[in-house]
C-alpha cells in the first residue's frame, strides 16, 4: 500500500511537470496520451487513502521544479501554464476533501476592469496562481467595480488582481481600490497590464506586477 501510494505521488509529481491534466493530454513532447494525468492520479491516491496534505506537498514540489526549469531556460511560459492547469485539475478533485477536513486555500479574486476586454495577461496570472495553490475566482472581463467589491466581500478574499490594457480603462482600477477601502476591506490589490506603471500603482495604493511572475512573487511575499 505504501509502495503504491509512493508510486502515485511520484506519478502526480511527474505529470504536473509534464503539464498533463488528464489522460487525453499530451506531454511537452507530444507523447503520453492515454496514460493517467493529474486528475485521475489524484483521484486514485485519495481513494487509496493518501492524505490531501501529502498530495498538495507533492504538487508544490513539482511546481518548484517547473519554476526552476523556467529559470534555467529549459521551460517556457506554455510549460508553466500547462503545469498550472494540471495542478488546477488536481485541485478540483482535492477541493471537496479539503473542505471536509477544514483545510482551505487562499482566495484570489481576479478581473479585467470595466470597459476592457483584454484578458490574456489576466488569464496567465489566474492560471499560474491556481498552479501555486490559490483558489482563484476569475470574474472575467469588463467587470464593474461594484461586482468586484461584492465578490471580494462575499468570498472574504485577501487578494485581488486587476488587469487593464488601455490607459482609458486603467483609471477604473483606482475606482475599485477606493470602493474596497470605503467598504473597510483591506485586501491586497495587485495591478498589471500594458498601460499600468509602478507610479500609477503607487498612486492608487496597489502593488504593481510587471508580469505573471511579478504577481506570483507579490502573493508569495504576502
Amino acid at each position, binding site marked *: 500500500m505504501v509502495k503504491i501510494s509512493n508510486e502515485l505521488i511520484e506519478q502526480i509529481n511527474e505529470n504536473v511537470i509534464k503539464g498533463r491534466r488528464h489522460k487525453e493530454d*499530451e506531454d511537452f513532447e507530444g507523447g503520453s496520451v492515454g496514460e493517467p494525468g493529474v486528475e485521475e492520479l489524484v483521484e486514485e491516491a485519495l481513494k487509496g487513502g493518501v492524505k490531501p496534505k501529502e498530495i498538495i506537498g507533492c504538487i508544490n514540489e513539482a511546481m518548484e521544479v517547473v519554476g526552476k526549469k523556467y529559470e534555467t531556460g529549459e521551460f517556457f511560459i506554455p510549460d508553466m*501554464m500547462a503545469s498550472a492547469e494540471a495542478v488546477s485539475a488536481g485541485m478540483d478533485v482535492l477541493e471537496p476533501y479539503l473542505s471536509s477536513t477544514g483545510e482551505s486555500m487562499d482566495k484570489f479574486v481576479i478581473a479585467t476592469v470595466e470597459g476592457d476586454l483584454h*484578458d490574456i495577461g489576466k*488569464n496567465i496570472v*489566474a492560471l499560474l496562481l491556481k498552479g501555486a495553490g490559490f483558489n482563484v475566482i476569475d470574474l472575467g472581463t469588463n467587470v464593474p467595480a461594484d461586482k468586484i467589491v461584492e465578490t471580494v466581500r462575499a468570498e472574504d478574499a485577501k487578494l485581488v488582481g486587476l488587469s487593464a490594457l488601455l490607459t482609458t480603462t486603467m483609471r477604473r482600477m483606482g475606482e475599485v481600490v477606493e470602493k474596497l477601502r470605503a467598504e473597510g476591506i483591506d485586501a491586497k490589490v495587485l495591478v498589471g497590464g500594458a498601460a499600468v506603471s509602478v507610479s500609477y500603482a503607487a498612486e492608487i495604493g496597489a502593488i504593481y506586477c510587471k508580469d505573471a511572475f511579478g504577481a506570483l512573487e507579490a502573493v508569495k511575499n504576502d
Partner: protein
Amino acid sequence: MREGILVKPYERLEQEQLERIHEASLSILRDPGILSYNKEAVEIFDDNGAEISAHTEYWRISIPEGLVEESVKHAPSVVQLGARERENRLILDGREPRVRFGTGSEANIILDIAVEDFVSEETGIKRSFPVFQRRRGTIQDLCQAAHLCEHLPNVDFFIRTVNIQDEDITEGNKDVNKFFASLNNTKKHVMAGLTNVEKLDDVIRMAEIISGDNNEPVISFITCVTKSPLQFVEDTTQNLIEIAKRGYPVSISASPQGGSTAPLQEAGMLAQLNAEILAGITLAQLVRKKTPVLYGSVPLRVRMDNLDNMYGAPETNRYNIDGVQMARFYGIPCYSTAGIGDSRFPGIEASVNKLLSHLFIALSGAQYIHYAFGLLEGTNTFSFEQAILDDVHIGMIKSMLKEQRIEEELQDSLTMIREVMNTSHKMFTRYARRYLHAGDVIPFYPFEGDANETLLKVKARNEELLSSPVDEIPEEIKKRIFQEFDVLERIK
C-alpha cells in the same frame, strides 16, 4: 544527412529567356572566346576541336557551341559531399531547389570585440560598451571558426573563413594546414581553395586518412578559374585540371563585377557569368567526364565612387537570383552567394544588409549558399559574433521556408480549437509545447537589447560556444597525420 529546405523557387526569368541567355553565352564562348593564360587548358580544348590562336602572353580559345553543350551534359546533377559525421553529409541535386547555407571567403582580417567600461560625464553612471579591434587572421582563428561553426546549427558546410597569415605558414604547408585546422574542428563537410597545386595529393591523402572507409569525399575544392572578363588564369585553371583528373568535387566559381569587369545590366552580366562558368565546366568534363562540379555563381556590382565591390547593392542580389536559375536550367547544383554586405561592424546594419541576400537567395532555391556567416566589409573581415547573429537569422529563414504540412496538421488543429474553446482561458499555449521542445520554433529572439547590449550578449555566447568542446579527429589518426604532413604542432 543535412536535407536542406525545399523551396518553391522565386524566379525572375521565363524558360525562353533562359534559353536566350544560354545561346548568348555560347555565342560569347565562340566569339570573343576565352583568353587562356594556361597552356594545358589550351591543349585540351585544341584536342577537342576548339579554334586556338596564339598571342604574346595568352591564347584565344574559340569554343564551338556543340562542345560546350555536349560537355555540360556530362556534368552530374547529383553531387555527394561527405563529412566526418554521416549525418552532416550533403546530397546536392541540381534539379531540386533545396537550400543549404555555409561559410565562405578567406577573410584577411578578424574583428574582435573587447568590452570596455565608460563613465558618463553627466550622470557618473558606468556602462560597458563593445569596442572593436581588427587584426590579421591566424591558423588559430581558423581552428576556432571551424569550432564555432561546428556548434552553429544552421551552418550546413564549412568553407575556410580566415586566411591564415602566420609567419610559419608557407606556400608549401598552407594547404594541409588549412584543411587540417578545418577538419579537426568540425564534422561538417569542408571545402577550400588550393594554394599550391603540388600539394593537392597531400591534401587528398590526408582527407582520405581522416575519412577512413567513408566513400564520399569529406573535402571538396573551389577554383576561381576565370578572371573576368573571360580569361582562364594560369594557376587556378591548373588547379581545376588537376582536381578534375582526380575526380574530386569542385566548385567552378566566377565573380564578374557589374560595372567594371562585366556589364552592369542584368542580361549582359548573366550571359558573361554563365559563359565563364560554362567554360570551366566544359574544361572539367573534357579532363574527366562526370567530374562532379558546382555551378559557382558569385556575381556582384561595384561601387561607383571607387569601383570596389558592392555586395549590398540590389543588383548583386538580382544577378545572384538569376545565377541560381541558370544553374537549375542545366541541372547542376549551384554554389551561390548570400550574406555579404558592406557594413564594417557586426550588429544591426550588417544584419539588415545581409538578410536581403540571405532571404532572396534562399527563396531562389540555391543548393549550396556560401559566404553566409560572419563576413563584414564585403569578404575582407570575419567576425565570430556576426556569424552567431547570422546563424540565428538563417535559422529563422529556414524556418520560414519550411515545407507546409497542412494535411497532417489540419485534423489535429480542429480538435485543438474545439478543446480550447471549452476552457476558461481560451489559450493554445499547451499545444505549442511539442513544437517548442522539438526545436521547431525559436522561443524568442535570443539577443534582445539595444545595439550594444546585443553585441555583449553575442560575445558572451561566442565565448560559451568556444569553450564547449568539439569531437576532434581521433588521436591515432592525428598522430599519423602529424608524422606524414607538415601540419603545425601547435594546432594538434
